[in-house]
């Protein structure tokens, strides 16, 4: 296993910048997740590490050694392609055995058989050995592709959306398997995904890519609790974080936020207020997650007044979207909540958990108690 470092990687396809001065370091045995929307440059970044795409500028280092001029075959990197890239004319067995049959990584047939057995069992495709890729479903193809990747002992595993085409149940199972594999064999893994739950549950660290640039690099907790900007904040969490405009005002010596054109003021926690006062902000953007909003259908003095816009039950929870002064806020409410559309609803925002962003640039300013949230033990990771 090896560490991987990228220094100032720039790559353009024609006039489009796929990667723009990207630098990052993946430590030995780290599970590193590249996260971002479609077209962010995640796949190009992976291929640059693998050596099948070449950066126009910058260095790729594996274990401190510059590999820009090394052929992909000599980099000893194993990759799952998003399009599976299986060999159509070979059976599942031969596909998975292929890396162990090349001159470079030659193994004897008995060893190959044992290894293929191991990974196909793990992927639950051991009954499909004799099939060809054209005779498999997409989910099965994807598992063959993962199998072909895991069968080796490379410097690093690169996985490009390896679970994207699996059904929900299998995806959950495979997520567990990958996590387990990660902890039992020390493997450096770079994992591309656009599913924030996968990113948060698997990653040691996450890099959020957007338009070829890294928006933020850090642990899952940092992404969730202290996002660098509104873009990152919106990527993590379901329902999407609510971000609204607010105006800072003083109320009997304490800082508060006026928002939605309503009389009710939102208090700011003292430690956040200190930072906000120091930064000469008057207008801010306030982010608050759906589970930090309480609601009531009966009028409560001092709460925000809104109306129900839509009510979506999604099994284990209900997402209620409320219209407050023209701004829509999504909140997570108990499963048995029944609401009629346009019914009045009263909301209270837990401002202890609010994240403040700069009104002009959308960048992170402060949240209350940030350090404590971020250092929370991994066991308390909670999704949405």
């Amino acid at each position: 296993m090896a560490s991987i470092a990228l220094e100032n990687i720039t790559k353009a396809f024609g006039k489009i910048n796929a990667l723009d001065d990207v630098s990052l370091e993946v430590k030995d045995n780290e599970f590193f997740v590249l996260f971002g929307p479609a077209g962010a440059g995640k796949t190009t970044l992976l291929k640059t590490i693998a050596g099948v795409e070449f950066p126009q500028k910058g260095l790729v280092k594996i274990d401190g050694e510059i590999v820009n001029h090394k052929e992909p075959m000599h980099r000893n990197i194993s990759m799952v392609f998003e399009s599976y890239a299986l060999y159509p004319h070979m059976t599942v067995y031969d596909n998975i055995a292929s890396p162990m049959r090349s001159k470079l990584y030659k193994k004897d047939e008995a060893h190959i058989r044992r290894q293929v057995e191991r990974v196909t069992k793990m992927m639950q495709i051991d009954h499909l050995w004799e099939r060809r890729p054209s005779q498999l479903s997409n989910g099965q193809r994807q598992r063959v592709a993962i199998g072909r990747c895991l069968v080796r002992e490379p410097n690093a595993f690169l996985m490009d959306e390896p679970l994207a085409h699996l059904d929900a149940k299998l995806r959950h199972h495979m997520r567990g398997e990958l996590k387990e594999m990660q902890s039992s064999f020390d493997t450096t893994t770079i994992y591309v995904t656009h599913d924030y739950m996968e990113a948060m549950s698997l990653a040691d660290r996450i890099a959020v890519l957007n338009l070829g640039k890294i928006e933020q690099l850090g642990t899952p907790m940092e992404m969730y609790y202290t996002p660098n900007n509104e873009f990152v904040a919106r990527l993590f969490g379901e329902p999407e974080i609510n971000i609204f405009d607010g105006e800072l005002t003083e109320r009997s010596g304490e800082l508060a936020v006026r928002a939605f054109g309503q009389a009710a003021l939102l208090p700011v926690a003292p430690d956040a207020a200190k930072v906000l006062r120091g930064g000469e902000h008057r207008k801010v953007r306030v982010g608050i997650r759906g589970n930090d909003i309480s609601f009531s259908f009966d009028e409560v003095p001092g709460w925000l007044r809104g109306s129900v816009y839509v009510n979506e039950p999604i099994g284990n929870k209900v997402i209620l979207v409320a219209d407050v002064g023209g701004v829509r806020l999504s909140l997570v409410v108990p499963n048995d909540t029944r609401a009629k559309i346009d019914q009045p609803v009263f909301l209270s925002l837990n401002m202890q958990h609010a994240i403040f962003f700069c009104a002009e640039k959308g960048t992170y300013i402060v949240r209350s108690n940030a350090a404590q949230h971020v250092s929370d033990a991994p066991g308390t990771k909670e999704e949405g």
Partner: protein
Amino acid sequence: MSAPTGNTYSNTETLVDTQKNKRAVTALQTFGRSLGLGLYSLFALFPLFWMVLISFKSDREMFNTLFIFTPTLENYEAVLLRTDYFMAFFQNLIVSGGAVLVTVVAGVPVAYALARYNFKHKEGVAFQILSFRFAPEIMVVVPIFLIFQNIGLLDTYLGLIWVYQLITMPLVIWVVRGYFEDISVEVEQAAQLDGYRWFEVFIKILIPLIKPGLVAACLLAFIFAWNSFTFPLVLTGFQVQTITVTSMRYIASDTVRFGQVAVAALVAITPQLIACLFIQKHLVRGLSFGAVKG
């Protein structure tokens, strides 16, 4: 209980009825299809059959008999034993086979480059190659004759194989290019990461995938080269003779020896027939231009 039973019964009856109808329709369809195909094959194969018949007829019976005549082998004897027709046959095999071989060795890499790499005027180059097929052979054959005369390629295997590239190369390049384009680049990249050299990737991954197209295109190219008439007529003479030119010999100035022409033609089409039968599977799959992905 009785009412539902009655109901069910009548339902089954209609079901059986429609099934009967369906079976009748299917039988009719099968019959119609067979009839159509039968008629077509009669239309397609009858000339061949007729050629076989007249190859056994003597000149005397050529025009006054249809199916009943005294079979004779004198045409075969005249063509195969008394002339050097077999020579022409083998020489034709050498030029056509050689032409296809050169095309494969040079054309497949060209097709790969046209499919994979982006370079200036790529489509222009591809179209230029294809356009060699548009130009009538008679248009270029005279200048080629003069050039060959000067550089000593007239009446040689090399010269003819070279000129045949005009016929075989565009076909192979265009068919194989489509096949390469259908193969995802990531398949090649995956193989490279698996530890294979580029050349190994080409042999182990790409060649098996383009094989149906390559075989079909080569076969067609071979047939076109085999049947070529204008080029060998003008560019060859005594050293190299192709079968197409030689078979014209049996059309003498005073009389056409139809029996001998038929024998010559039968011998000429044999390799094509055999090749087609053997690689029929590849031909059908290959000419569907990658529509059926293996």
